[in-house]
């Protein structure tokens, strides 16, 4: 029941893009510019390239175990005990990720849109809706995501149109003066923004395609698009703000949207943030879904009651979220998550692939 049907390549494409983009669109390139300043867009671009490499790893790994999901084949790589612990850790990672995304966006909303609404109401409602969606089958999730791509397209248009406001191309010059070191250092901050492609570790066997290669192409296209989108935003922001401004504005995109006026819509930022909620919700529910699925394989037999797991996790997330109401703790956790997501989305697949290759012959038999 959890996967009623397979998902199509197009749905995979939408799923990956919308899982990747989320709250970060508003903050990019604030965090990435801590060391690099106006060269932040290079860091963002670089991170997309690294993500592409990780996708290749995940694809190779998935191809070796084309009929199973990671929580299932992890046992044949690491054995039962370590596999279970890893599943639990990954499940925890996803649960906390979805919490952090939901909480960060609630934070944005309560600061920019609904000032008087109690903070926990916003996070509660968004987590509840995400849980409702996450408790459905993968196919339903893919369908919903495919529909939300319309909202994403609207937001994309808003960003592109409003980005062509006042600015100065000289903000970019001279390119690359911050040096390779800081640029690489800031790449780490972008990891969390790119995280999402590792969902392939789970969905690989459920993608309906004629050739397995199409999966790689779709994944690369999705990651390429996300990279393009992020770099575009970085460029728009750097074009509009100078380095000193950049350092003091945590949510530059909102500022840009706010100053842009259409004849029928006065504050685009509110419209944007409203529609963007749909896009962030994708990230939340995909993570919640994955978390529940990884958690299902923690015991020796698979736990079949998917919706119970999802709602349990959601309630847990919401309760944990009640303590995260102040901005500082969100920022701290976000910082911490840059590293964790790098580990989960790139390093773990690499290790898995290496160990699996080492055990390659066993797999063939």
């Amino acid at each position: 029941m959890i996967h009623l049907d397979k998902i199509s390549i197009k749905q995979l494409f939408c799923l990956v893009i919308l899982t990747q983009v989320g709250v970060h669109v508003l903050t990019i390139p604030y965090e990435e510019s801590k060391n690099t300043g106006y060269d932040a867009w290079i860091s963002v671009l670089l991170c997309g390239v690294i993500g592409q490499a990780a996708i290749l790893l995940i694809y190779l790994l998935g191809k070796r175990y084309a009929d199973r999901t990671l929580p299932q084949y992890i046992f044949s790589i690491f054995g039962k005990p370590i596999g279970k612990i890893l599943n639990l850790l990954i499940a925890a990672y996803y649960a906390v990720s979805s919490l952090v995304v939901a909480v960060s966006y609630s934070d944005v909303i309560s600061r920019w849109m609904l000032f008087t609404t109690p903070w926990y109401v916003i996070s509660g409602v968004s987590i509840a809706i995400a849980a409702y969606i996450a408790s459905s089958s993968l196919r339903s999730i893919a369908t919903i995501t495919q529909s939300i791509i319309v909202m994403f397209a609207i937001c994309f248009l808003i960003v592109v149109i409003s980005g062509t406001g006042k600015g100065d191309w000289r903000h970019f010059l001279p390119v690359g003066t911050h040096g390779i070191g800081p640029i690489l250092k800031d790449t780490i901050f972008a990891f969390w923004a790119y995280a999402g492609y590792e969902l392939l570790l789970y969905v690989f066997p459920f993608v309906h395609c004629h050739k397995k290669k199409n999966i790689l192409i779709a994944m690369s296209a999705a990651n390429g698009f996300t990279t393009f989108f992020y770099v575009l935003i970085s460029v728009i922001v750097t074009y509009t703000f100078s380095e000193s401004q950049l350092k003091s504005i945590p949510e530059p995109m909102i500022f840009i949207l706010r100053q842009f006026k259409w004849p029928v819509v006065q504050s685009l930022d509110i419209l944007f943030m409203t529609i963007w909620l749909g896009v962030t919700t994708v990230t939340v529910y995909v993570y919640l879904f994955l978390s529940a699925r990884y958690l299902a394989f923690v015991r020796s037999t698979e736990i079949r009651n998917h919706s119970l797991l999802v709602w349990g996790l959601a309630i847990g997330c919401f309760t944990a979220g009640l303590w995260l109401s102040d901005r500082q703790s969100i920022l701290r956790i976000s910082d911490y998550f840059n590293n964790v997501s790098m580990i989960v989305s790139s390093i773990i697949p690499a290790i898995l692939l290496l160990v699996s290759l080492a055990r390659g012959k066993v797999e063939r038999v």
Partner: protein
Amino acid sequence: MLADSSPVNNEKILQAMLSHSSDFKSSDFTAGDRHYRLYYIDTMIELAVVQDHIIRPLLHHPNIVIREAVSILDYRETELLTDAAQALVEGKSVVQIDGEAKFYLLGSELKKERTVNIPVNERVLRGSNEALIENLQTNLNLLRKLIATPDLAVKYYQLGTRSNTKVAVLYIQSLANDEVLKEFEKRIGSINIDYVEAPGFIQELIQDKKFTIFPRLLVTERPDRVRAYLMDGKIAILTDGSPDCLIVPVSFWAFLQSPDDYQIGWLIGSSFRFLRIACFILAISLPGLYVALVTFDPRILPFEITLTLQSTMQYIAIPPVFEATLMLLTLEILREATIRLASPNSQTIGIVGGIVIGTIVVQANLISTMMVVVVAFTALASYLIPSYEMRSAARLLTFPFILMASVLGMLGLELSFLLVLAHLSRIHTMGIPYFYSGISADTIKDTFFRGPIRSLNRSKESMAQDSSRIRVRRRDNK
């Protein structure tokens, strides 16, 4: 119960079986040395048929086998009294020869039906003007004429343990999906109910259990529409006594399509289709959007428009949420009132609704003018949805949207949309997803737009099994 050889005893038992009904009659006649007894229910038989094709030949040919004497196609022999009683109820005449423990059941039903009329609920500007009627035989005749292929399967079912309603299930053998068919047969076979109200009961009894306000079976009264769906590999259900045909399984998008779309050019058809979908979205969200804009985020609108809005709301004491709910409720009441009312009275409703509620309410500063405009527009938009069931669903959805918008503003509206999307994606009909996003390249052809017929050869809506089937074969111009 087996028949007795004495007609007198049989009559007594039959009378008891038919609850001593007064219209149960019998008549005796003798031809040669044979005594016949004819049982019938006189309200159910065609008198001329009985006289000309049963009694007369029997009188003229004494001592002949009944099968050879009567000129009636529907002929059956039975020894069971229960069969005879059932046949009597269906309008057959039952003949017995004195001394023989056997009944001859002869078809002599009286047929009362209205003529085939033009469709009332699904009017079109172009296309056929035939509508289904209450008689199952006539309906099947209409459909068989439209689909003249031996591939068209017609299966009868008897539903209702007391009413014994005849239900016909139609599908095209080579196109219908086997799994859907199996699932459907399982469901219709498991219905155990004393009588059937079509299409409502059947609809409720065969659809999936999951709770939803969206219709999952399409109801139509147009034979040409039934044909279009049959050609897509779907199943049509006709019930005796109901002019509505049920189509399963259909997706969400089928409810926004109209037969008209396919009769005019695809560009115009597409624009009307698009208009309809836009109006569906407006019908569920416009009052909510207005409430959200007015109560939470007037900042979104330009300053001048905000001023206009404010000026209309200046003297209104009621909060916009209640204004919207009240006006929509009034509208629903008016609508419901006009449907059931005799037509001379509906003018009164028009005056009460249009003048009193529309104008005076505004003059009395109860409801703002803008709200009346919004509500009127919402109502108009909802009437663009071709399916009555979907229209009702859309109108009902408006209320939760208003509620959410009044609590969380624009955000609530967005969340409601997400919720509706999520809900739609979770529904299944006959094991097939109900909703698919209409925006990807291969689905957009027949969802948001009505693509050219050449491109529709493999639309997503079609679940025909034969994948090589092409609706339009392109002729190579060499």
